[in-house]
């Protein structure tokens, strides 16, 4: 490959265009109130001045972007093993990123970049929430090459030697590396779109339903006489029909929006393998590409609901280590619409074997009782209390109470039934959820700390809770057999403390 990153170099020259658009965007964002005023006063403004003004602004921005382009350079310092970016027109900034600290290198393409035909390269390290280095305009081959170099710094010297001997071989290698082993088809995405996000759909339906009903009630109050005279039979039928049609219509709209959103986000999802890492790329307008190193993965979640099970698809979520100490940022990577074999091959790549389940722990029935008390008992008591002491009108809506109790009761029941902790020598799997059943998979070596907790009246019952803290979030299992949990905690601690296993 001809690319030599040891000398400072600029972005690709069409990058000026990208800079231009981005600067224009910044200006537009900063000045939008003025622009709005101008639009409204379009008639009153001297057209000549306006044209001159616009041209000046454009030339100015063009000049600024040219300067930005001139002053932006990047190179690989092989000696100190650093990637160095210098930028800034007046205030110069020099960013040096140590190669071994690089966590992720993403190649993205926004809409503007797609139009111009360049890519963006982001370098991400643990340690801060910002993207440390971003190259806004770079050709695809160069981006791939740079990514390759940034991530394979240990092998850099041998790599150069090989490159010198045979150019074509390396190219072949690169091609192989980028060759995807999983592609998620358009059809799978459609399936995902149709079967996911029911919660949102139902919430929307409930809101819609209640508004309609309220209006209907009001209507009834005002025209009681009319209603009685004409007879409610036809009226009711018509309303019922309208409501049913509207529900179907609304449901359709939500589904369509869902499908469109998912297709836009995940179109052409490709997963490739490269030296033990996973290379992902997806997106219709903004193409995103990320790399996952298995050792940085903390929690892997497999999620699916009843319909998805019937259709043979599932969703994978991969949580990597969060950046700094007190940062909430979690780099979650989603892979929608995998088949079971695809899931297995991804899990195999991440864990080197397929997670198994050996010991199964169930929560005590008190967990169900307690969550029913919290989610049904307390709200109903509150409802009765308010109705009794403050607002007797509340009781007119008391028909809501049994409906609420049944729906929430069912949800809590399924949550309880699905809540399980599976323990295996190399894996801990926590299963949870009422409709969307998700399994969080972690390896014991990823545990940072363990918290055990027991209420004092649960001592005799021998039940208690455990929380496993990882760098990608916590996993909590409540009201399980406490002596087994304690024994497992001891075993996990023993494993962590006797090995130097790398959690990141």
């Amino acid at each position, binding site marked *: 490959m001809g690319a030599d990153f040891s000398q400072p170099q600029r972005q690709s020259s069409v990058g000026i265009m990208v800079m231009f658009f981005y600067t224009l965007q910044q200006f537009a964002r900063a000045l939008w109130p003025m622009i709005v005023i101008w639009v409204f006063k379009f008639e009153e403004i001297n057209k000549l001045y306006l044209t001159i003004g616009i041209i000046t602004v454009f030339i100015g921005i063009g000049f600024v972007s040219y300067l930005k382009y001139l002053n932006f350079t990047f190179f690989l310092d092989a000696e100190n093993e650093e990637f160095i970016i210098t930028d800034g027109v007046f205030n110069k900034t020099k960013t040096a990123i140590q190669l071994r600290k690089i966590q992720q290198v993403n190649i993205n393409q926004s809409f503007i970049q797609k139009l111009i035909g360049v890519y963006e390269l982001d370098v991400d390290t643990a340690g801060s929430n910002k993207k440390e280095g971003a190259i806004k305009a770079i050709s695809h081959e160069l981006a791939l090459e740079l990514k390759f170099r940034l991530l394979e710094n240990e092998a850099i010297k041998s790599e150069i030697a090989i490159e010198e001997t045979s150019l074509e071989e390396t190219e072949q290698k690169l091609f192989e590396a980028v060759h995807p082993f999983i592609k998620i088809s358009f059809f799978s995405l459609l399936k995902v779109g149709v079967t996911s996000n029911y919660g949102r759909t139902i919430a929307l339906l409930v809101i819609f339903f209640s508004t309609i009903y309220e209006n209907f009630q009001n209507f009834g109050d005002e025209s009681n006489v009319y209603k009685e005279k004409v007879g409610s039979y036809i009226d009711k039928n018509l309303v019922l029909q309208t409501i049913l049609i509207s529900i179907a219509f609304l449901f359709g709209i939500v589904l369509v929006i869902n499908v469109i959103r998912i297709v836009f986000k995940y179109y052409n999802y490709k997963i490739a393998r490269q030296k033990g890492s996973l290379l992902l790329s997806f997106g219709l307008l903004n193409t995103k590409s990320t790399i996952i190193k298995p050792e940085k993965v903390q929690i892997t979640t497999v999620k699916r609901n009843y319909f998805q099970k019937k259709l043979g698809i599932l969703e994978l979520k991969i949580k990597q280590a969060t950046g700094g100490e007190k940062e909430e940022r979690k780099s979650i990577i989603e892979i929608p619409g995998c088949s079971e074999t695809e899931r297995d091959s991804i899990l195999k790549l991440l864990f080197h074997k397929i997670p198994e389940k050996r010991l199964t722990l169930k929560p005590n029935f008190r967990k169900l009782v307690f969550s029913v008390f919290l989610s049904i008992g307390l709200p109903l008591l509150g409802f009765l209390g308010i109705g009794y002491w403050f607002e007797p009108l509340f009781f007119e809506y008391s028909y809501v109470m049994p409906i609420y109790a049944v729906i929430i009761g069912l949800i809590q029941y399924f949550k309880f039934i699905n809540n399980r902790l599976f323990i295996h020598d190399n894996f801990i799997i926590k299963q949870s959820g009422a409709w969307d059943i998700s399994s969080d998979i972690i390896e014991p070596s990823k545990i*940072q700390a363990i918290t055990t907790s027991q209420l*004092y009246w649960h001592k005799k019952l021998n039940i208690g809770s455990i929380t496993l803290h990882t760098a990608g979030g916590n996993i909590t299992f409540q009201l399980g057999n406490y002596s087994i949990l304690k024994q497992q905690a001891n075993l996990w601690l023993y494993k962590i403390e006797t090995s130097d296993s790398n959690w990141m």
Partner: protein
Amino acid sequence: MKNFTNETIDTSQLPKFEEVTFTNLHPKYIRVVLINLVRIIAIVVLVPILLSMLKPELFSARVWLILGIVIPVFSILLVVFSIIGCKKKGFAFREHDVLFKHGIIATNTIVIPYNRVQHVALHEELISRYFGLAKIEIFTAGGSSSDIEIPGIEKEQAENIKQLLMGKIQKQL
């Protein structure tokens, strides 16, 4: 390879974290907590008194009655729970990990292996310093929920603990 063995682990023979004897916080620490509580209670008592001096019309006999019941009950509960909470806190340093126990209604025990500790901080607050006490904070990569804060340790001991932990971390690296 010669020394490599792979015997089955007898999980019942493993050291048990639940059988560790915990060190309680320094007895003087209760005074620190009480002084802090007195400050809070003083504010709760003084605010209505000051308000009643400025705007007497706001405070009817009924309001005084409610305040007169709520504030003492609240204060007594706060003091009792703080003292119990203080007594329930305990820490232990094992060969390979640090344990911290806390909680009144529920007993929570958090265990951090030394090879997962990111860094250690030592804090001295004003009142604690007067009693010669310090607080140790132990951070992991697992976010704020998995960090340990051990208050009420004698300054010298705290320094020693910090040195110990730093030594352990260095060794791991």
